[in-house]
């Protein structure tokens, strides 16, 4: 391809393909674009070449001379193609518009959550009245995957956290000669707060995300639509077994993590020279039944929250593969956010009733 700047005449070679077009695209639409194109030699032309010719002829307004009929025929389907619209401009929205959009979004999301809670509650009550309506085999399967299969990771996290807390607090407390109180610290922190929270976070990461992905994929594949048209309520078929499993499994997992966490703390203390019985007596004197119950009540709520949010996000999935990813992320993020928020509410309530 040769371009004579003086005459504004562009002479094409025998072939016009993507590689050459990429180098010479600047000829199109620039200030000094060709006025005349000599295409007599041109024999083969690919899609990019056609685009080049089209742009020279159309927007740039050049005359094509000597174009072979077979290539002119290739160009013909594009005679009525409108010019490329300019790259869509990102509107420079003001802060106020952003705030407005975000508010509407949050309100819509809240509304969806309230609807979900209402629908779930009514379905759950119906299931309470007629336990036959619950898909028990599904429930046990979910309980196994969310509970039994989580034993290793939940146990590991609690055990190590117990050890680390004992280790870190033993040194400063020893300076005051009260290192036996490490037991109080570890046990109370784990039973009241950390045990339920860590278990719930593990559950959110393992199972809440799985619920969202599973239900989201079903949504994308129109399986949810299939359920609806078969007259099967997805709420009863998919959500109730999962939430029920979360409700049953989380307290058990929490008790198990608590035990392992305290065990981890004990191990460190025994390593530091305390006899087991001294630690055990300290534990029994430090921990009241209310502390244990506090954690278990919380974990029941967390279990329902995590499972419910996982299912809700799954059901809210839009179209396409990336929507499933978005739902999964939203499930985990919302779960963790809710766990921490609800925990703060519990702290306030328990403080008020002096538990």
């Amino acid at each position: 391809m040769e371009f004579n700047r003086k005459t504004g005449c562009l002479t094409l070679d025998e072939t016009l393909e993507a590689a050459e077009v990429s180098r010479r695209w600047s000829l199109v639409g620039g200030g000094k674009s060709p006025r005349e194109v000599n295409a007599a030699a041109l024999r083969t032309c690919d899609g990019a070449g056609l685009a080049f010719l089209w742009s020279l002829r159309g927007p740039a307004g050049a005359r094509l001379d000597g174009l072979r009929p077979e290539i002119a025929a290739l160009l013909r389907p594009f005679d009525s193609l409108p010019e490329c619209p300019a790259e869509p401009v990102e509107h420079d929205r003001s802060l106020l518009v952003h705030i407005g959009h975000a508010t509407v979004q949050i309100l819509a999301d809240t509304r969806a959550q309230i609807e979900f809670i209402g629908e779930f509650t009514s379905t759950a009550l119906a299931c309470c009245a007629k336990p036959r309506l619950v898909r028990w085999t599904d429930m046990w399967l979910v309980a196994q995957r969310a509970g039994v299969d989580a034993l290793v990771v939940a146990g590991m996290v609690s055990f190590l956290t117990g050890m680390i807390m004992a280790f870190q607090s033993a040194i400063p407390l020893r300076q005051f000669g009260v290192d036996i109180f490490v037991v109080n610290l570890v046990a109370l922190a784990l039973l009241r707060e950390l045990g339920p929270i860590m278990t719930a976070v593990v559950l959110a990461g393992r199972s809440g995300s799985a619920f969202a992905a599973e239900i989201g994929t079903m949504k994308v594949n129109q399986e949810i639509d299939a359920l609806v048209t078969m007259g099967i309520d997805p709420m009863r078929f998919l959500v109730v077994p999962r939430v029920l499993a979360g409700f049953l499994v989380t307290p058990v997992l929490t008790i198990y993590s608590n035990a392992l966490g305290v065990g981890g703390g004990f191990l460190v203390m025994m390593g530091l020279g305390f006899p087991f019985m001294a630690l055990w007596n300290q534990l029994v004197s430090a921990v009241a039944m209310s502390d244990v119950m506090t954690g278990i009540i919380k974990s029941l709520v967390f279990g329902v929250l995590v499972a419910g949010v996982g299912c809700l996000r799954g059901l809210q999935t839009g179209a396409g593969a990336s929507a499933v990813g978005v739902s999964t992320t939203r499930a985990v993020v919302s779960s963790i956010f809710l766990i921490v928020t609800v925990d703060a509410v519990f702290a306030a309530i328990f403080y008020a009733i002096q538990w």
Partner: protein
Amino acid sequence: MVSPIIEVRNLTAAYGDAVILENVSFDVRRGEVFVILGGSGCGKSTLMKHLIGLLSPARGKVLIDGGDIHTATRAEREVLLKKFGVMYQGGALFGSMTLEENVTLAMEEFTRLPPAARRLVARMKLALVGLERFSEHFPSEVSGGMQKRAAIARAMALDPAVLFLDEPSAGLDPVTSAGLDELILSLNKNLGVTFVIVSHELASIYAVADRVIMLDGKTKGIIAEGVPADLRDNCPDPFVRAFFYRRAPDAPSGGMP
């Protein structure tokens, strides 16, 4: 004589021990519309997956324009892959991209065309399949027939010599399906693209096919090869005639239903 664009030599296709096709050989000539036919479950899709390199043959070889995709080095493979485009049965468009972005993706990866040029080429490809007004739409926002046409536009992004279409008319109404046939013929005539189509829609086979091969699940091979109308009238194999006349194979010959 011009060499065939696809040569299949003694191909045996198997999943583990289960042999699907045995000792299959055929050629696809440059510039023809070639249709692979057969009843359900006879290995049509398996054969196609071997042709496009998704599955490796148990024995035998597949040559595209003289190159064997299964033994090619990475660099050779890349060159070979640019010689063909594939339209998958469900379209397999990327749901998070607009139709235009679906088409520009391959150009972004394999050419140095500037963005404006890529967008124009994409819009021209979409115009070829009649979708220029939908370039900013997402796949979920257009109909099933449009998705298939967009998938053809995407397969054509790098101007391949061969287009593979897997069941192009499956799930489309007769009118849309006929439109698709017309599109195939016009691309074949105007751009000289070779088509390899897996199908069992009789109407569209008669409309587009230059040559067909028919696979059979029982003999695990090709039971007929030729021009469709000719096979319908003159093929000695009763199963082949039954296929073209759309009747159960053991129906008494002669009388039409």
